[in-house]
């Protein structure tokens, strides 16, 4: 019951402070809150109604025999030791996770995961804007394109003529580009269901010696046009060269969907 309360309290608090979306997709929020509320009501029911230990009066001999016949026999010594270790390990993990649920501040995934999952590695079929739609869009629409939209477009075409005159205005966190000293990605995570399936996407930004100004994981808003990436070794042929770059706080809804 304790674990139920732990999860219930944490989840409801996360929902109340609007941080549940750091962990799951917004479409699940209502369902989650409703089910957790039901769970808490049932937990209350357990406290109020469930038979307590001394109410179990097994004075029925038939039943005793029945239960005893299925009860496990004592295992051999080696298995006892192995079992003991497994139980202790399991209990430790459970307690640690419970503590983390209640005591640690909620967080988004960091650039460590973004690097490990390779920014843009599977953007080929992402939702977001297609080239065809983009051509028809007005210049106002471009201003609201997100990291996801631009990353998808960059995947589909690296024809510089397409990007002529267009300005990207995106917000994301900094992820160093593995193969390039002067390029970093303005990234965000895209989520299908929950943080566990988060895929990082990013727009490459070319800025000489950016490390003197920026740290990985810092959130920035970058605005600028597209140029051919001056570096010949980078895997991104087109990059944004910023006209303005501004550090911002982490937004309350850091993930894209």
């Amino acid at each position, binding site marked *: 019951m304790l674990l139920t309360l732990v999860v219930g309290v944490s989840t409801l608090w996360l929902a109340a402070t609007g941080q549940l979306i750091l*962990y799951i997709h917004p479409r699940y929020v209502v369902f989650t809150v409703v089910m957790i509320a039901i769970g808490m009501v049932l937990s209350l029911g357990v406290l109020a109604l469930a038979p307590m230990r001394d109410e179990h009066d097994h004075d029925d001999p038939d039943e005793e025999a*029945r239960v005893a016949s299925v009860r496990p026999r004592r295992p051999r010594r080696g298995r006892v030791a192995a079992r003991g270790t497994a139980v202790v390990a399991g209990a430790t993990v459970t307690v640690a996770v419970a503590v983390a649920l209640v005591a640690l501040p909620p967080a988004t995934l960091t650039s460590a995961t973004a690097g490990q*999952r390779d920014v843009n590695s599977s953007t080929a079929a992402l939702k977001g804007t297609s080239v065809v739609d983009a051509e028809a869009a007005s210049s106002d629409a471009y201003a609201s394109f997100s990291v996801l939209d631009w990353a998808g477009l960059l995947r589909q075409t690296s024809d510089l003529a397409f990007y002529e005159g267009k300005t990207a205005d995106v917000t994301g966190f900094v992820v160093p580009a593995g193969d390039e000293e002067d390029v970093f990605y303005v990234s965000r995570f895209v989520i299908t269901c929950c943080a566990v399936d988060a895929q990082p996407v990013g727009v490459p930004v070319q800025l000489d010696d950016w490390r003197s100004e920026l740290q990985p994981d810092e959130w920035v808003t970058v605005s600028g046009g597209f140029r051919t990436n001056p570096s010949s070794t980078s895997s991104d042929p087109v990059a944004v060269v910023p006209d303005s770059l501004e550090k911002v706080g982490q937004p309350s809804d850091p993930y894209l969907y």
Partner: protein
Amino acid sequence: MSSPLPRGSATADLDRPHGHGADHGGHDHEGGSGGGPGHRHDHGTARRRPSRAPLLVAGALVAAVLVAVRLASPAIGPGLLPDTLQDFVTLTISVIVESMPFVLLGIVLSIVVQVWLPQAFFTSWLPRQPLLRRAVISFLGMFLPVCECGNVPLARGLVLKGFTVSESMTFLLAAPILNPITIITTHQAFGWSDGILVARLAGGFLIANLIGWLYSRHPDPESLLTKSFAAECALPTGHEHGGGRLRESVELFRREMATMMPALFIGAAIAGGIQTAVPRSVLVTLGTNPVWSVLAMMVLAFVISLCSNVDAFFVLPFATTFMPGGIAAFLVFGPIIDVKMLALLRTTYRPRVLAQLTLVVALTSAAIGLVVNFLA
């Protein structure tokens, strides 16, 4: 109402449905409502029920402490843990937060099945012939659409209601795939292209019935279950202390939560740990090979432990890098066997059974994937 076979001997009959022992001295239950004639324990003189107040107070106190800690925690501030460890925590918590509502839903449905449905609800209309019966059970998921993790408590409830062990396995394996939500989302993601949807549905049905058939031939189905669950099956239902169905419901809830929660925590931690430790690029590079694409996607499905309702959307971006057989294998293997599911299944089935299950399901999923690749 069909009379359940008397339970309680350690050697179960050859795979006959074990109805719940209803023999307190030979009396039958009447739908499990509180106390039929001659049904109550005779405690002799009236027994004073101990006061519930201390328990409620203790519960309230614990909840208050948890809330207080939770409210105070932002003061700790960010950056307490190194990045990788923080991500591990975030991933683990996200698995728990995402699965919890489904586990709860599964338990609620399980309680409904065990306590509030009439005793012979399933035996009356399910076909008697085992093969046909299992085939029909495969489609029960259409009416009970719970995520794969919610199916475990529900399957437990069904066993306690009279399903055989092998029938419960058929249900467990089929329900995550053969349910309306999964079918709709898979169709939304893939349409009919490359036969992925067909492979998923046919594969799920095939595997579920294959496993059910295999285990129906087992001479001692009792031995497939963990000792604690088998002992639970041996307890007669309606161990009434005069509280009736409501009491039974909350007692069931307490028992199921006590079993499921540690399993969920541990499964989530393992899933989060593997994700943090293994770079995804390793898997992605294997995408275009007909054999490796299937294997790599199965490993990914195993590790990522996603709910079957939405895994189609997750795997969609991979569809351009990986061959369709790999995608099909992911969609068939994932809902049945993954880190989180194994932890939850461990509450009910013995490790040896789980190992066998994983092997058979893995081989069949791989075969399906390879066939799809071959035909593509």
